């Protein structure tokens, strides 16, 4: 039972809840900008899940300084690889979000509407 109160478990649960909120936003909302916000929430939740996997019990940040000596680094630090991957993922998420907002602006310029139901060209 105690595992459910640990830091990594709470972080992972929060991440998955954010992912579900993001999916809900993408599916149920009609406003294009709200759909982009839903996507952004999904992205953030995914990043939080990946970071929660990098946590080791009783570990600290992967930076060598006074608190973490070089010789005992392997036993004291958190996993640096997921953190580096999340850094990549955040930047790509930013690029994709900005791109989607640009598409939304362009669509708005064409039809003066932000409602997804007024764009039926690709509907089957």
């Amino acid at each position, binding site marked *: 039972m105690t595992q459910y109160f640990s830091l990594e*478990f709470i972080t*992972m649960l929060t991440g998955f809840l954010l992912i579900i909120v993001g999916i809900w936003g993408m599916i149920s909302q009609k406003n294009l900008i709200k759909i982009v916000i839903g996507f952004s929430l999904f992205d953030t939740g995914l990043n939080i899940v990946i970071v929660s996997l990098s946590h080791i019990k009783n570990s600290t940040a992967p*930076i060598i300084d006074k608190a973490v000596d070089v010789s005992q680094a392997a036993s004291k*630090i958190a996993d640096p690889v997921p953190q580096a991957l999340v850094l990549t993922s955040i*930047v790509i998420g930013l*690029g994709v979000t900005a791109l989607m907002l*640009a598409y939304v602006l*362009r669509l*708005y*310029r064409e039809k003066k509407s932000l409602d997804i139901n007024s764009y039926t060209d690709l509907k089957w």
Partner: protein
Amino acid sequence: MIKKGILLLILVGFFAVISSLIINFTGNEALNPMAKHYAENGPSEVGAANLVTAVVVTYRGLDTLGEITILFIAAAIIGFFLKAHNADADRPSRLRKTSEILETASTLLVPTIFMLGAYIFINGHLTPGGGFQGGAVMASGVMMIILARPTSKFNHKLLSVLESVSGVAFVILGVLGVVLASGFLNNSFLPLGELGSILSAGAIPIIYVSIGIKVGSELTGILDSLKEHQNEI
């Protein structure tokens, strides 16, 4: 109503699929072998006190190059899509006049924000932070300029020169690693120095400065093209 039921079903189904993952997650007790290798050999091989930087810039530097390319392509597509019509450029902006507090605060804060951004990417190999974070902080300073003075124009030629020069510098530093050291983006062709000092970790500070300038100018370009569009709607 039936749509809401289906939506609820999808969400509950998704949660049911991942719930066993969450419930059985007990956390890690020790580093996996790869991370252990980075932790044990990183300080001596790369010389960066921040091991995340060692992984981002050196061990997986190729990922970072790809990431920069993706950001560049995104910025280029946004610029292409939202290209401002020159005919509309003279039209008066319909934006409300900004408040005096914001204008005065921006003259005080923008140089400080830029300095903080530069600090973050110069110290990327020592403290949490790095090129991407520093560049994003700098772009937030640009955002403040745009909010305070919506009519201000940016020098696009300077932005594209900054972006190209820093991007080319990143690739040249990577190729220098192949020529002078053991592989692409190997940082040890410059002296590694003392662990934890500002002039350490070989080429990492130079690479991070170029990444910071590139990310900052790209994000500025994105913000600028999103802003120029506003006058047309």
